[in-house]
């Protein structure tokens, strides 16, 4: 195992994975919340746009979206996300498109996680809140959202775990994270395969297990008893 760490920048690769995961988790939480609001809107057209986004993105491979950002948006359409004159332009371009691809893809799943949280709230809760004279905003703030959030913890946690592992996909546009490192090690030292497997597996267990345990714990602890 020492050889893997001695000859390759394992920690650097994992740090890149974490950076990708954190930024795209924030991005997809924001975009996914907007989409969830769209999908629950009273206006048919707005709901339709939200549903169309979710159904298109959820059924498209992440690899395709990632390849599209680089070959389509960057090369063909000439959309720039980093200053071409900057010395780190190449690395920045790949990293930023990677975050964008991960955000666009996982926002659809965040949206559905949030919506399933809202769906755990029975309709009577909102009616009771209206009946004591709470306004729409008060109803959301004091009655619906606190319950919906608790119902969304576990699906959101599952989405975060999947996102963390999915950061590997952006190796396809040359972001130097774990999958990129795996290909590099295997090309040069195929004999390290077992060690490499263990390092990667343990690394991802360390990254995802706490998320899983925490969401299960809080999902249960905060669950609304009905």
């Amino acid at each position, binding site marked *: 195992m020492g050889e893997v760490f001695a000859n390759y920048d394992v920690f650097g690769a994992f740090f890149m994975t974490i950076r990708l995961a954190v930024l795209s988790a924030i991005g997809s939480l924001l975009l996914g919340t907007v989409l969830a609001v769209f999908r*629950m*809107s*009273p*206006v048919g*057209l*707005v709901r339709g746009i939200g549903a169309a986004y979710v*159904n298109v993105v*959820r*059924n*498209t*491979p*992440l*690899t*395709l979206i990632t*390849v599209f950002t680089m*070959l*389509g948006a960057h*090369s063909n*359409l000439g959309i720039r996300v980093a200053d071409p004159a900057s010395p780190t332009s190449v690395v920045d371009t790949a990293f930023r498109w990677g975050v964008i691809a991960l955000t666009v893809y*996982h926002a*659809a*799943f965040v949206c*559905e996680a949030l*919506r*399933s949280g*809202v*769906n*755990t709230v*029975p*309709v*009577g809760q*909102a009616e009771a809140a209206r009946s004591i004279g709470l306004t729409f905003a008060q109803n*959301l703030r004091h009655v619906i959202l606190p319950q919906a959030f608790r119902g969304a913890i*576990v*699906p959101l946690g*599952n989405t975060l*775990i*999947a*996102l963390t*592992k*999915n950061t*590997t*996909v952006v*190796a*396809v546009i040359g972001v130097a994270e*774990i*999958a990129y490192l*795996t*290909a590099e090690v*295997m*090309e040069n030292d*195929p004999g390290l*395969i077992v060690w490499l*497997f263990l390092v*990667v*597996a343990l690394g*991802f*267990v360390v990254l*995802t*297990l706490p998320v899983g345990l925490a969401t299960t714990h809080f999902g249960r602890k905060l669950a609304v008893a009905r």
Partner: protein
Amino acid sequence: MSAPVQLFDAPGPRGRAQQRVAAVVLALLAAVVLAAILWKLGERGNLTAAKWAPLVSPVVWRSYIVPGLINTLYAAAISIVLAGVLGLLLGVGRLSQLAPVRWVCATFVEFFRAVPVLVMMLLSFWGYLALDAVPGAYLPLAGTVTGLTLYNACVIAELIRSGVHGLPKGQAEAGLSVGLTPGQTLRSIQLPQALTAMLPALVGQLVVILKDTALGYQITYAELLRQGERIGSAYGNIVLALIVVAVLFIVLNYSLTSLAQWIEQRLSRRGRVAGGAQAADPTLGVDADPVAAGPAPGPGAGPGRG
């Protein structure tokens, strides 16, 4: 379970007017965005007949798209069969009476579920190459299938385990009380019901596998996405080629998702399952999606790779 919450009160005249304004504004905004996309595509010369024509020509379909589609479906089909078999073994192993069997299966599942599918593909691809274990032409396929099989077997094992645990206790007790051994009870009473209950989730997993075949792109497997990219290099129309590939993926996956929903509705109408599927997730009926669907198989479920 009562109906899920309606966020909005029934609108009055002012509310309806606001909604109409919102709809118009959003429609305009959508039109502007669409126009901007088309303009950008046109500006870069993507909308000329020369770029479109190859994508509707029989030659391109015969030599690129159809083979890509076949390879995608081929890898997905092999993987689902192998993952099904391995998953069943692992799932039954985790329910075994023998503690060592349970531990081995649990360790296997936890490890292989933690490793991203792409990493597993890369490891097996290069591993097979180093060991010279697979003929060169089959390396990409072998790598793709190995990665998909190992990961999805773990997911299926978890589905089976939670499916059996989700059955009412009375089912196993009834089996034991008529004199079946625990093994017989598992095989002839619990597993068939658990599998039926998990059927929608299993079909949902097919969508994940189909999408994840696109990961084979990174080990040069000539699946749909790779073939699309080849069209793009050959005819200089990468954007359009990728759009066509995306549409094919969406149609395939959407059909599978609809199939899963249809199966689920049929199952719940017939009431074939003792407490399984319906009890698992009351909001499932709204929209069967990988995130909310079924008893969460824990880490790794939900948005598939790909």
